[in-house]
């Protein structure tokens, strides 16, 4: 019969059963042994006493008429009782009158004294029981009878009992094992089933499972019922939770759709506004150009300066509108992915910048980076914005270095544009990429605050991220990644942490 697993309740029940029955039986056996020992000793004394009395009364005439032979004959009758190893008749002055010793046994050494007022005394030794009885005839003491019995029969009896008890114990333990195997199942099976179902549920998260209720309406049955009710409750809550979650999801989707729609409308609106603004500004610029060309010599110097101001503002306005159009184009236009060589792109932009202001001493350090998949037009705009930014903010320095390169972090390629220019206050990092937000006064570094916002949109459209590190007058570094990180979960928070650390 297979034993249940070590920690099973069935095993514990079996063990308990066996322990209880074993202990009860052992105690019962011990009690029985003790009782038997006591009664056996008592009966032994009684038997010996009776024998002593018989021998005594049969030896009276022998003593009175001084016939030891007759007494010896009487004693020799004891040969038939095997437990008696020695016996003797003693005269009143305690001298041996006749003795009997079983073959191989010790002779009688001394005659124990009988306490005053008693007829008989007995003494239990380690191996013998000695009994002495006064022989009384016609109310007068005549002599003593001494009988010594071997106690080895008690030991033998004890051994026999022990072997029987051991056998009974073994059988009853097996019976207990059998009983707890047969009936323990009826008690433990519902618990085992319950445990199995609970383990299955905690493993598979399958809350539709149910424990089988037992036949009896006992505590285990109540437990099973309560457990099943709990499962039903959990299932109901699950359903409700899922419903609420789905509703929330729907609502979010709807809101997002609405927001996207609103955003697109807004962008379309700003695009058309920007586009429509171009016409009048174009006209303004054109006419002021004509005015300065045709009537320049007829105007005095002050008027010419004013016209130049108007033209400058018009150009800036034009630039602003172009930038705004770019910005909205970045979000609205379709991405056209192709392999793009960012390094050569950076190189050509750097050339453009140098030709624009040949007087400046700026060193470009452009590393060769691997080709990347992306929209070439947008990526050029991105690099142009970042490098132009660096070019602009190093203008206050006599010598400047602008770097472009890439590094690998957490298995993600990160590009960077680094300069050693004016830098920025790290506390204002979060404002860097917001449109129209500028950290420096326009008088110091001209600009409209759209470039970095555009850069951020381009990076995000490619599924990447952009962030910056910098300090006032210690330069700035702009980092960006293009492809989304391979596992969103692990890198995105690290990125956040990095950004907040800025």
């Amino acid at each position, binding site marked *: 019969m297979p034993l249940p697993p070590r920690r099973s309740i069935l095993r514990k029940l079996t063990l308990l059963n066996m322990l209880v029955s074993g202990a009860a039986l052992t105690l019962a056996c011990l009690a029985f042994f003790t009782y038997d020992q006591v009664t056996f000793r008592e009966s032994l004394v009684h038997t010996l006493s009776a024998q002593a009395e018989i021998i005594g009364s*049969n030896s*009276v*005439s*022998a003593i*009175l*008429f*001084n*016939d030891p032979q*007759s007494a010896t004959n009487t004693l020799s009758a004891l040969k038939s009782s095997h437990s008696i190893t020695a016996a003797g008749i003693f005269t009143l002055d305690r001298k041996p009158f006749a003795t009997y010793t079983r073959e191989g046994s010790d002779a009688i050494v001394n005659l124990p004294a009988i306490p005053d007022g008693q007829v008989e005394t007995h003494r239990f030794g380690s191996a013998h029981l000695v009994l002495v009885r006064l022989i009384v*005839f*016609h109310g007068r003491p005549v002599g003593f009878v001494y009988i010594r019995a071997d106690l080895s029969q008690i030991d033998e009896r004890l051994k026999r009992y022990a072997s029987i008890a051991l056998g009974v114990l073994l059988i009853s333990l097996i019976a207990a094992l059998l009983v707890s195997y047969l009936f323990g199942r009826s008690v433990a099976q519902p618990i085992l089933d319950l445990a199995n179902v609970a383990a299955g549920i905690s493993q598979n998260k399958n809350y539709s499972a149910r424990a089988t209720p037992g036949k009896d309406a006992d505590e285990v049955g109540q437990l099973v019922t309560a457990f099943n009710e709990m499962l039903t409750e959990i299932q109901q809550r699950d359903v409700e939770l899922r419903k609420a979650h789905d509703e929330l999801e729907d609502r979010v989707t709807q809101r997002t759709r609405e927001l996207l729609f609103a955003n697109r409308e807004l962008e379309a609106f700003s695009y058309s506004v920007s586009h429509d603004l171009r016409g009048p500004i174009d006209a303004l610029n054109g006419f002021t150009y004509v005015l300065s060309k045709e009537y320049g010599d007829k105007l005095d110097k002050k008027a010419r300066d004013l016209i130049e101001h108007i033209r400058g503002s018009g150009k800036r306005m034009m630039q602003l509108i172009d930038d705004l159009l770019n910005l909205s184009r970045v979000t609205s236009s379709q991405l056209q992915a192709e392999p793009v060589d960012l390094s050569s792109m950076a190189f050509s932009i750097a050339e453009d910048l140098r030709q624009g202001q040949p007087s400046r001493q700026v060193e470009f350090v452009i590393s060769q980076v691997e080709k990347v998949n992306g929209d070439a037009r947008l990526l050029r705009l991105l690099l142009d914005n970042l490098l132009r930014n660096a070019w602009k903010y190093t203008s206050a320095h006599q010598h400047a270095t602008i770097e472009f390169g890439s590094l690998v972090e957490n298995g993600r390629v990160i590009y960077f544009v680094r300069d050693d220019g004016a830098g920025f206050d790290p506390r204002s990092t979060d404002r860097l990429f917001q449109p129209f937000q500028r950290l420096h006064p326009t008088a110091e570094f001209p600009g409209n605050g759209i470039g970095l916002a555009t850069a951020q949109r381009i990076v995000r459209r490619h599924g990447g991220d952009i962030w910056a590190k910098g300090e006032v007058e210690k330069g700035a570094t702009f980092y960006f990644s293009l492809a989304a990180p391979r596992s969103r979960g692990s890198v995105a928070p690290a990125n956040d942490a990095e950004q907040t650390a800025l």
Partner: protein
Amino acid sequence: MSLAEAMKSYRLKSGRLPDLWRTICPPHLLIACLCLLPVALRGQENRPTETQVEAAYLFNFGKFVRWPANSASNSEYLVICVLGNNMLGMVLEGTVKGETIDNRTVVAKALPNLQATANCNVMFVNASEEAHLDAILSAVRHQGILTVSDIPHFTDRGGMIEFVHQQDRIRFKVNLLPMADVGISVSSELLKVATKVIGQSGGAK
């Protein structure tokens, strides 16, 4: 210095006796032997005399014998008579003094002649009366008296119990036939220690 004292001082000196010596002769046994030595030496004079033993036997016979209902047994006395030999009579008087058997006071009585046998339960016939033995026996024949004597062949001549001397001990023969005639019964315990029993149904011992 006695041997016991010597042993004691030896024990004090050595601490303990050699085991072998102790096994062969344990000190307490040795001391007991030494103590008993004077008793053994005195035994000769202290040993009960033949007369004393005979007196004790006469008294003890009373405990194993049952007299017929119509005899003197019903009285409150158990009378042991001695015919002849005043010596035994005197010793017997000392032996039975204050003794009772079955609530009957035991009395010793010296018989001057055969006329006084009426109250006797036991009668001892001294060897000196051997010449008149047949007359004595026939005189008491129907009186239910247990007759005892140390006359040789007493039982063969119709007596009941005859003392015999055997290996320094006094023993007795029993003749059941005259006892049966007068209705005296004898305990088998007594017959067990008799050297010879005449008229026993199971055959003579």
